[in-house]
C-alpha cells in the first residue's frame, strides 16, 4: 500500500498515542529535573532528583524487593504454568470447565482479588488460612508484619493472578508441538522428563519467551495488590517501586512530584533493560523480514 494510505490509517491511533502517552511522558521527564508540586511551576534543579533517588536507601530497598518479586514470580509461573498446561493437555471434557475456573483469577480486577486474598490471611477477619495453620501447627504466622511472611503472601497472590495467563499461553503453544516429534523421541528411548526438557520445551521456547516478557513487564510495575496486601509496605521492606512513586509523588499532596518523576524515568530504564533480550530478538526478526 502507499505511504499516504498508511498514514491515514495509522493517523488517529498514532495521534492518540502521541498526545496521550508521549506528551505526558515528556512532562514527567521535565518534572524529573525540577523541584515541583501540582499547580505551581517548578524550579529547575538539574540532576539532584536523580542523585537523591539513586542514593536513597528507600529506593534501593524498593528496587531490590521489586526485582526479587519479579524473578520469583516469573520462575514460579513458568514452572507451574508448564506443569498445569501439560496436565490440561491430557484432559478432554473437563478442559473448558477447569479453564473457566482458572480464568476467574485472571479476569478479576487486581485490587479486588487482592482484597479477597488478604481476608483469607487476616486473623482479625477470621482468615481461613490462619485458622488452618493454627489447627495444624498451633503456630501463628504474622502475614502482615513479618517481612518474609508478607512476601510469601504477595508472591502467592501475584502467582495466583498471573498463572492462568501463563498456563493458557503454554497450552496454546503445546498445540503446536507435532505429535510425530514426541513419538520419535519415545522410539529413541527418551523417558518423559527428558522428552519434556529436550524436545517439548525447546519447541515452545517462543511462547515461553513471550510469557517471560509479559510477566516481567507486569510484575516490575506491581502496585495495585500492595495496597491491600501490605499496608505497611515500607516499614517491612516490601515496598515496590511504583508504590514508592505513589507515596512520594501523589499521596500526601504531591510534595515531591519531581522526585517521583525521576523515579518513574529510572524505572522506564530498568524495564527496558530487563526486556532488552526480548526487544533485541524482535528487532532481529524485523530486520530479517525487511
Amino acid at each position, binding site marked *: 500500500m502507499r505511504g499516504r494510505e498508511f498514514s491515514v490509517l495509522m493517523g488517529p491511533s498514532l495521534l492518540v498515542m502521541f498526545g496521550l502517552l508521549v506528551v505526558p511522558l515528556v512532562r514527567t521527564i521535565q518534572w524529573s529535573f525540577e523541584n515541583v*508540586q*501540582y*499547580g505551581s511551576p517548578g524550579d529547575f534543579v538539574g540532576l539532584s532528583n536523580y542523585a537523591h533517588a539513586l542514593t536513597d536507601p528507600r529506593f534501593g530497598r524498593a528496587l531490590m524487593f521489586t526485582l526479587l518479586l519479579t524473578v520469583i514470580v516469573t520462575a514460579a509461573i513458568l514452572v507451574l504454568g508448564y506443569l498445569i498446561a501439560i496436565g490440561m493437555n491430557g484432559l478432554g471434557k473437563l478442559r*473448558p*470447565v477447569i*479453564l*473457566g475456573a482458572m480464568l476467574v483469577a485472571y479476569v478479576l480486577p487486581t485490587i479486588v482479588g487482592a482484597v479477597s486474598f488478604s481476608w483469607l490471611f487476616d*486473623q*482479625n*477477619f*477470621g482468615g481461613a488460612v490462619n485458622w488452618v495453620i493454627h489447627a495444624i501447627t498451633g503456630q*501463628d504466622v*504474622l502475614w*502482615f*508484619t513479618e517481612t518474609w511472611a508478607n512476601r510469601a503472601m504477595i508472591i502467592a497472590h501475584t502467582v495466583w493472578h498471573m498463572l492462568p495467563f501463563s498456563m493458557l499461553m503454554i497450552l496454546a503453544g503445546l498445540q503446536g508441538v507435532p505429535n510425530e516429534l514426541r513419538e520419535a523421541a519415545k522410539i529413541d528411548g527418551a523417558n518423559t522428563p527428558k522428552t519434556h526438557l529436550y524436545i517439548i520445551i525447546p519447541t515452545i521456547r517462543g511462547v515461553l519467551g513471550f510469557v517471560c516478557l509479559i510477566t516481567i513487564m507486569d510484575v516490575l510495575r506491581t502496585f495495585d495488590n500492595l495496597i491491600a496486601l501490605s*499496608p*505497611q509496605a*515500607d*516499614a517491612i521492606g516490601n515496598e515496590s517501586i511504583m508504590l514508592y512513586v505513589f507515596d512520594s509523588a501523589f*499521596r*500526601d*499532596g*504531591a510534595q515531591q512530584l519531581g522526585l517521583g518523576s525521576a523515579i518513574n524515568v529510572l524505572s522506564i530504564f530498568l524495564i527496558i533493560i530487563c526486556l532488552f533480550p526480548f526487544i533485541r530478538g524482535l528487532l532481529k526478526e524485523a530486520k530479517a523480514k525487511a
Partner: protein
Amino acid sequence: MRFPRPLKTGVAVLAVAASLAGVTACGAGSKTGGESAATVACDYPMPAESTTVNVLAYNSSAIDPFTNTMVKSCSRDKVTLKHDPIDFAGQVTKTTATLAGATGSYDVLETYGFVVPGLAEHGDIEPLDDYVAKYADKYKLNALSKEMRESMSYKGKLYGLPMQAQMYVMAYRKDVFDAAGIKPPTTFAEMIDAAKKIQAQGNIKYPIALPWNATADITTNFQAAMNSYGKDFLDSSGKPQFASAEAGKALEQMKSLLPYMDPQVTTFDQPKVQQQMFNGTAAMAIMFSGRMNDLTLPSNTKLASNFAFAAPPAVESGAPYLYSRLSVDGWSIPKNTKLDKDMLFQMMASSVGEDASKASVPAAYPAREGMVSEDSSKYAAAANGTIGKTMPAAGDPKAAPVTNAIRPILVQVITGQLDVQAGMQQMQSIAEKTISGS
C-alpha cells in the same frame, strides 16, 4: 440445540449476578442520608442553578449522625448534598488533595483540632467568625462549647464549626474481668497485671488491644502517652520535646505493653481494634469515644452486652493526666470552593443544631452544651470524667508535619528495631529539621 458448557455456565453466572442485583438493588441510593438521621430545618437561600455540594467526612458512628443530618435535611429542590463513604485514611488523603490547588472537589470538609492550625496557617480554610456572628441567633450557635470552639480556632479566629468532641475511652469485657476478679486498671502497670490474670484464665492470649497503626494512629497514641506526663510533642514555644525524660518514659511504658498485645498491633487501626473486641480475642481496648457505640450494638457482635466502659488509665500513678487525647471534630469551608460560602455555613450550622446534636447521642459527645448526662450512654460517665483529666491540646501548625516525620522512627522504636534513646534522638533531630526546613 446443544449449548457448549462454558456458555451455559456463563449465562448461569450472569443470571445469578442479575438476580442478586435485582433483588437487592430496589431502592438504590434511597438511604444515602441515613435512615435514622434526624431531619432538621435547613433554611438557606436557594441558588439559581442546580448545585451539588460535595461533603468530605469519614464514616464512624460518631460522625455519621451529623453528616447524615446535613445530607438528608439540606438536599432539596435544586441542591443535592453528596457524601461518598470513605475511611479515615482516605479522608486525610483527599483533604490534602482537594486543598492543594485553585479548585477542589469538596465544598464542606470534616476537620479536627489537630489539623486546623496547619490548614489555617496555610490559608486553606475559611475563617468563620463573621458567619457565626451573623447566624448565632438563628442556629443558637452560642450554645456550642467555648472550649471546643477554641480547639478549632487559630490565632483568635474560628476555622471550624465544632460538632463533637472525642476523648479516649477504655472498653473492657465485664464478664472476663469479673471472672478474673479484677477492676478496670488505672495505670499501665495495672493494665499489665490485669492482662496477666486474664491470660492465666487461658481463653484470651493477647488481652490488650490498642490502635497502634504504623501509618497513622500510632503517633496519636504516643502523644497521648506523653500527654499523660504533662508533655506534648511541641512545647508552648514550638520546640520539639522528643529528647525529654517524659518522652523516654512514654516509650518504655508503651513497649512494656507489647507482650500482652497481638504481635501485629502495628497494623491495627480503630476498626481493627473494634474487630478484636467483637471477636472476643481481646479483653480491653482504648480508643476514641466515637468508636464506642459500635461495641454496644448486637448487630455487630454477640458479645455486645458484655462490654463496660471506664476512663482510660494514666500511664503511671501520680501522672498529671490520663492516657488520652481530646479531639474536637467539626466542619470547615475550603477557601477554594466555588459555591456560596454563606449557604455552606448554614448547612453546617443546621447539622449541629439542637435536634441533630441530641440525636447523635449516645454515639457522639456533641459540642452543643447540655446534651450529655451521665446516663446518656454506657460510656457517658467515663467520657465526662475523662475530659477534665486530658491534657489541653495547644494547636500548632507544625504539629502535623512533625508527626508525619517522626512516625517511621516511632514504629522502629516500638518494633524494637531501634533502641529508645537512639529513637528519641532521631525523632528530636528530624522534628527540628521539619520545623526549620519547611
